[in-house]
């Protein structure tokens, strides 16, 4: 049966179009229930249960649930609860969800795929019996509601003999009334959830907007503009649209990155932020120039737990004073205020409950772990049990008369401070997918025992006779690279880099590939590793372990003794690694005069070539920047960090690194040549000279000039800036330079001009990642591209589509960044655990001088901390005088400059349970009334049972510099 869907649309140019679409109605759509006795099509697998157990007092018979759109959108957390099953999502509801909220749509789809949840999508729009035509004078929403009721009615009729009822859940009173009039069962979500025996769900009920509770309170915020007005304003240029980024230093200030505009617009104060939350897509209006302001150069401190009313009063006055302080003209930045919100980007937030004075109250404040998110008001009866736990909360709305947004409790993670819970929080907050690999994903793994088939042998070059070995950190199980080197008859060397052939096992498009693409990278926490690919591949079949045959993707060069490349060859191969060495073992072998074995000769050859290659790179202008590298010794039983040790760098580290770089460059050139439009490459844009401000200033203070005109110039000036009495000065300068760097990113070659391909840090015109496919997805794509270009594998559609490759790059960049943040947060966590039991005095250097604080770097732990200069209670005026131009703080005779050595006392400040801070107090130089006496030097020397070593990474932006972590992180 055929009808036509007709509607009128207005085109952008002002024209009017009448759109006519065909709409075919069918009668062969199955109802999805195995209990159906009518002639519905038999399915292999029935999504709905035959005897749905009824848990509700309102509906004592077996029943299926049909929610309407708003119920799904607002109460998704309840639907996700494992006890909620047998839900029918109508096609019309699903379509509306897709249009209104992409993240919720994804969650609904996941539930639909999950067979345990027993969800079913019923295509009511295509079924002859349940399709409704829009009546004259009926709005689109009314028509949709009518369609939902019709579908429910049809279902009820259909299953009447099977004895299963169908219940409509909707919070729309009108809809409910009409449903009841049509003899259907309809309830609000609240009534239904309250009637369930599982009472914990009640806590999860979200407060819809129109139920904004009685805070009585005045309207604190201006109204948000409606969509139509916003669109008009944007078109006329009166309003600007952009994403809100709350400042990390001050939670009351934010920048809006406006579309199509380079400069960010500044927004200051709670009132001007007008209920916008970090990452929301907002609409702002510029303030008149006289009201422009600038970020305060103070570092905002954590608010202590205050009672709500107090807090409200205080913050508002705070902002008023902020506004009243007239900012000098030169420092003013374009400032605006939020007038409307286009799209909220709320997610679920981890955090803790704020201890409330009155425990019996049901309303509590939730403090998120993420500092940029405001506190959230939730209703819960379990406050007592949840008080010391980490919980997850989702925001529902932020009414105008409420100081805080309103939300609801989702679930509990565990005790605060418990290592596993904290790890979980870390992973959730950084959006790291860490669930176990699903059945679907595991089904694509090869069946064990795995052997090499004859077919494969024919397709690959047999390199099992070569003396290949791998060199990795101790305890490494995922070996992705191996090397060999041998002399040829003509006096040249043959050097080979063999990389695990992961792309052979992970075929494009299947669930395993999709999961790896989503994860993007292996995430390294100090005590845990979240793998990108399942263990079978990463530690076994792909890993180039010694004494077993393994598949590899090899890059083989012929080069002269002076490391000039004569020939480059790429091939898929089978290798047999003769030894899996650690860096230390390899170094010992090279240094051993009596060892003349082939393997050792190969290592020596590699070593000497590597040195030449490195020199060439540095001459070319590659940067060698510093990072602070430390290793934690972890107690094998409690897994608490015992002591810290700086990492040693041996020649062998550098040797492996050089060849990995060489391989990456060779592959980059090859795939760019073959696929100029869609090669996946890595670039490092050169930083604008303004970024180098602090470094230049700091070097000037010691009389050195830093030339930032080019990479080579920078490298040379850094080499020259050495103060013999203070060897750490040069390292600190390099650390500061590292922070000026831009982030290196993945990109698709077709999206940028060739002049933008360069990698500033490595001084290479093109670069990609090829050598670690086990832990990075970008390498898998590079493998696939290379395989197609040498004819070793077939291509597939998405590989050749440059916009798809760019999308992959965008995801990889995001995951990479999040993985770095997660790693750093994990390190912070362990640092705090380490200092839990100690107070120690350490040497440090002043890195930055701020208005109310000194930022100090402690080389031994690779830590950075802040010494606050004002008094905590702000009663007495500060004894320090801040000189902004010279960047100094003066107190009496003592002047603090950048790079000054100091001694500070480290301890843990436990006043805020979620954000335990490292508290630094000044010991030397002595400032009366401020410095503290030195601590007693009783450090506990426990037995060092080293099981696993953990490393601290530095806060480097680019991945230039000595890589830390279990696995060598290549640039």
């Amino acid at each position, binding site marked *: 049966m055929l009808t036509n869907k*007709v*509607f009128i649309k207005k085109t952008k140019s002002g024209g*009017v179009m009448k759109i006519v679409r065909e709409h075919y109605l069918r009668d062969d759509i199955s109802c999805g229930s195995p209990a159906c006795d009518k002639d519905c099509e038999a399915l292999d697998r029935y999504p709905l249960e035959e005897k749905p157990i009824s848990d509700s007092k309102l509906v004592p018979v077996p029943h299926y649930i049909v929610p309407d759109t708003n119920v799904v959108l607002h109460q998704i957390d309840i639907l996700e609860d494992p006890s909620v099953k047998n839900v029918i999502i109508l096609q019309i509801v699903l379509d509306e969800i897709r249009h209104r909220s992409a993240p919720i749509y994804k969650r609904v789809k996941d539930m639909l795929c999950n067979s345990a949840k027993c969800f079913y999508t019923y295509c009511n729009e295509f079924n002859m019996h349940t399709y409704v035509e*829009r009546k004259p004078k009926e709005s689109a929403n009314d028509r949709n509601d009518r369609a939902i009721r019709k579908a429910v009615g049809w279902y009820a009729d259909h299953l009447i003999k099977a004895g299963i009822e169908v219940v409509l859940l909707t919070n729309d009173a009108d809809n409910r009334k009409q449903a009841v009039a049509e003899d259907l069962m309809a309830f609000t979500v609240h009534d239904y959830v309250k009637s369930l025996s599982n009472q914990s769900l009640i806590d999860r009920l979200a407060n819809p907007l129109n139920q904004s509770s009685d805070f009585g309170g005045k309207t604190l915020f201006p109204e948000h503009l409606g969509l139509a007005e916003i669109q*008009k304003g944007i078109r006329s240029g*009166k309003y600007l649209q952009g994403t809100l980024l709350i400042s990390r230093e001050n939670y009351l200030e934010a920048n809006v990155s406006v579309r199509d505009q380079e400069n960010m617009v500044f927004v200051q104060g709670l009132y001007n932020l007008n209920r916008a939350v970090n990452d929301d897509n907002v609409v702002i209006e510029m303030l008149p120039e006289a009201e422009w302001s600038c970020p305060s150069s103070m570092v905002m401190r954590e608010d202590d737990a205050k009672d709500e009313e107090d807090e409200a009063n205080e913050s508002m006055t705070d902002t008023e004073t902020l506004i009243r302080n007239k900012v000098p003209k030169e420092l003013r930045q374009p400032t605006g205020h939020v007038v409307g919100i286009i799209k909220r980007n709320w997610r679920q937030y981890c955090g803790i409950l704020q201890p409330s004075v009155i425990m019996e109250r049901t309303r509590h404040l939730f403090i998120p772990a993420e500092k940029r998110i405001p506190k959230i008001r939730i209703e819960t009866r379990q406050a007592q049990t949840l008080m010391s736990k980490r919980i997850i909360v989702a925001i529902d709305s932020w009414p105008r008369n409420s100081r805080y947004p309103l939300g609801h409790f989702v679930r509990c993670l565990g005790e605060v401070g418990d290592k596993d819970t904290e790890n979980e929080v870390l992973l959730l907050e950084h959006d790291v997918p860490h669930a176990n690999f699903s059945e679907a994903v595991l089904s694509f793994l090869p069946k064990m025992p795995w052997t090499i088939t004859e077919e494969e042998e024919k397709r690959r070059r047999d390199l099992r006779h070569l003396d290949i070995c791998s060199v990795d950190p101790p305890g490494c199980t995922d070996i992705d690279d191996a090397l060999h080197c041998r002399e040829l008859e003509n006096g040249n060397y043959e050097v080979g880099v063999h990389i695990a052939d992961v792309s052979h096992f992970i075929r494009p498009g299947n669930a395993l590939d999709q999961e790896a693409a989503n994860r993007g990278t292996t995430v390294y926490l100090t005590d845990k590793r979240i793998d990108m690919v399942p263990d079978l591949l990463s530690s076994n079949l792909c890993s180039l372990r010694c004494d077993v045959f393994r598949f590899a993707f090899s890059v083989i060069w012929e080069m002269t003794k002076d490391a000039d490349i004569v020939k480059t060859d790429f091939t898929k191969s089978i290798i047999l690694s003769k030894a899996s060495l650690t860096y230390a073992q390899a170094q010992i072998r090279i240094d051993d005069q009596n060892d003349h074995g082939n393997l050792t000769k190969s290592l020596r050859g590699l070593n000497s070539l590597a040195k030449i290659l490195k020199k060439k790179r540095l001459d070319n202008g590659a940067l060698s920047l510093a990072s602070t590298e430390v290793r934690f010794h972890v107690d094998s039983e409690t897994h608490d960090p015992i002591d810290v040790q700086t990492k040693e760098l041996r020649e062998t580290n550098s040797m492996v690194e050089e060849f990995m770089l060489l391989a990456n460059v060779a592959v980059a050139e090859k795939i760019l040549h073959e696929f100029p439009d869609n090669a996946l490459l890595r670039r490092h844009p050169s930083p604008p000279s303004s970024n180098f401000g602090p470094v230049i200033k700091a070097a000037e203070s010691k009389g050195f000039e830093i030339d930032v005109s080019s990479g080579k110039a920078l490298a040379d000036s850094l080499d020259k800036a050495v103060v013999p009495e203070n060897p750490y000065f040069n390292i600190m300068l390099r650390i500061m330079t590292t922070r000026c760097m831009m982030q290196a990113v993945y990109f698709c070659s077709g999206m940028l001009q060739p002049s933008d391909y360069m990698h500033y840090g490595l001084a290479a015109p093109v670069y990609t990642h090829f050598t670690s496919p086990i832990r990075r997805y970008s390498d898998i794509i590079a493998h696939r591209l290379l395989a197609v270009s040498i004819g070793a594998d077939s291509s597939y559609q998405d590989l050749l589509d440059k916009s798809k490759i760019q999308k992959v790059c965008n995801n990889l960049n995001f995951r990479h960044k999040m993985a770095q943040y997660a790693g750093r947060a994990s390190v912070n966590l362990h640092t705090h655990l380490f200092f839990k039991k100690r107070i120690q005095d350490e040497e440090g250097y002043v890195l930055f001088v701020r208005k109310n604080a000194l930022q100090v770097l402690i080389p031994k732990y690779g830590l950075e901390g802040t010494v606050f200069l004002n008094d905590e209670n702000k009663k007495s005026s500060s004894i320090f005088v801040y000189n902004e131009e010279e960047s100094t703080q003066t107190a009496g005779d003592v002047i603090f400059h950048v790079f000054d050595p100091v001694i500070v006392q480290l301890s843990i400040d436990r006043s805020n349970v979620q954000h335990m801070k490292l508290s630094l107090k000044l010991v030397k130089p002595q400032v009366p009334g401020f410095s503290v006496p030195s601590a007693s030097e009783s450090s506990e020397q426990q037995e060092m049972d080293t099981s696993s070593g953990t490393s601290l990474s530095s806060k480097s932006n680019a991945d230039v510099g000595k890589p830390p972590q279990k696995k060598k992180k290549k640039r």
Partner: protein
Amino acid sequence: MADVNLSEAEKTFILHSVQDNFRDDGRSCEDFRHMEIETGLISNTNGSARVRLASTDVLVGVKVQLSPVDPENPEVGRMEFFLDCSANATPEFEGRGGEELASEITALLTRAYGCPSTMDYPSLCVLPGQQCWLLYVDILLLECGGNLFDAMSLAVKAALFNTKVPNVTMTKDEGGIELDVSDDPYDFKRLDVTGAPLVVTVNKIGHFHVVDASEKEEACSLARIMLGVTQTGTITAMKKEGSGSLDADSISDMMESAKKVGVLLNKSLLKALGEEEEQGTEAVGFLR
């Protein structure tokens, strides 16, 4: 028009029979042939109609667009005609063969509807001085069986009757006035076509004249007048065509006939259209 070759005998027969108020298919001089009208065939137009007058087949589609006003008439809507002589009608219309005929007919229809009293043009104005509705009336000639002008004007009137113009809401803003077109397919207004004219062609054969000439009769006629006549008998346009000459008396006779016939034709057309709309069935079109 397709060439029809007539023998002398046939021509004589036609001439003489007209004198006796007989035509070769049995009609009287002021009778129209059997005609079929159907509206609402083409779903992606705002209005459409098909007229089949014996073997003349015409299809009209009306599309509306918002457009800037005509500076000379800033308070009224506009209408534009376009005729496409399809090669289906006769191979001579292939390529640009039918353009001459098309321009003739378009010109006459434009003049006939150009008179302000024929259609409610002011109601088509959306924003005085700025935006108005522009009606594109596109005529497709599918088969030629004589008396093209009449058939086309019938189809145009029927299509205009069938046209649904979406309602527009205006919202004032600092940046200007925003026009929002209603997306509800039931929210439209209809055009008032009671004043729309119908073209009646009167052919002079011998000393007498006939209305709705078939191709054979047209081949015998040397002169004809086309008149645009409304329901009330008002004449909105007039054109004389043909190689022959007419004297003033015959012209006034012909005009009287045309007026009489035109008034009746208008009435019966509107009645038929009203009946069709009441029935409300889906259009069958060419499938019948």
